[in-house]
């Protein structure tokens, strides 16, 4: 069973609005803003024009898949190397975000996500995909 180590959602300005994983809160905030900057820098470094930023980062012990929506919200997941269907999972998470977060009248834009329905459906979606949301 393939494992996902953590899931991050960051807003337009690079602030962490959702995190699922076992890292300390401060560390996760730091990692999120780090990724935001790297993503932005990669767009400038690209030799081709119209680059939309890093989509996949492959390392020895993990893979990082990133999805950026049209509005600049970034969804990225750290998983075991070689895990399949992560892009599809990120699209599913995006759909859950538009449904259970954006249609919630009590959610303020760009603020941390505290929606019960989003958490419940996210866990269901991840489990349905037969991957385990493990920590590290």
């Amino acid at each position: 069973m393939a494992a996902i180590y953590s899931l991050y959602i960051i807003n337009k300005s690079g602030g962490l609005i959702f995190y699922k994983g076992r890292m300390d809160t401060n560390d996760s905030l730091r990692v999120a803003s780090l990724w935001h900057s790297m993503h932005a820098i990669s767009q400038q470094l690209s030799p081709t024009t119209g680059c939309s930023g890093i989509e996949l980062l492959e390392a020895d012990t993990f893979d990082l898949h990133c999805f950026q929506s049209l509005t600049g919200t970034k969804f990225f997941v750290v998983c075991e190397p070689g895990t399949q269907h992560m892009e599809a999972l990120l699209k599913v998470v995006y759909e859950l975000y538009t449904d259970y977060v954006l249609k919630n009248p009590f959610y303020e834009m760009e603020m941390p996500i505290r929606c019960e329905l989003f958490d419940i459906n996210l866990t269901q979606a991840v489990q349905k995909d037969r991957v385990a949301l493990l920590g590290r």
Partner: protein
Amino acid sequence: MIGTGKIKQYANVLDKPLGKGKQEVSLSAFAFLFSELVQYNQTQVDNISELETRLEDAGYAVGARVLELLCHRDKGNRRETRLLGILSFVHSTVWKVLFGKVADSLEKGTEHEDEYMISEKELLVNRFISIPKDMGTFHCGAFVAGIVKGVLENAGFPAVVTAHFVPVEGQQRPRTTILIKFAEEVLRREARLG
């Protein structure tokens, strides 16, 4: 309506038949609109019970109009005079037209004679809404409670209608119950009618 013949032109707009209209509306569009309604009202009030009252008033206006429309369109201008009649009208016809399905169940209250309950696993209006913990017992179903109140009161059955969460064991999400408490005069009239 797509047809091959010429559409009959009516001289007076009041002569045109009342069409069934489009049966379906985008759920997302409604969800966003309702979310905006709640957000707007939140800025206008100071506390939660006022917010519930406002949502109920909004629903009341809908209920009054829905009753008129359905009486003309679906019931052939017949008027309900019995309690059970109007309750099953709300439970089936009104729910079907507004939410696309009949309500899950209609029960009579065991403790009081004047209480009836319509319950639903999850109200359509609440599908995407997660109430934050600090809002306590607030229920966006107050809008639906207002609709029911509008229908009942304009049909001649004044009542106090509220929406409640009822926790169910074995399920994470609580069920929703619309509690209808009829006024004294309704029960007296019902007893007189036998």
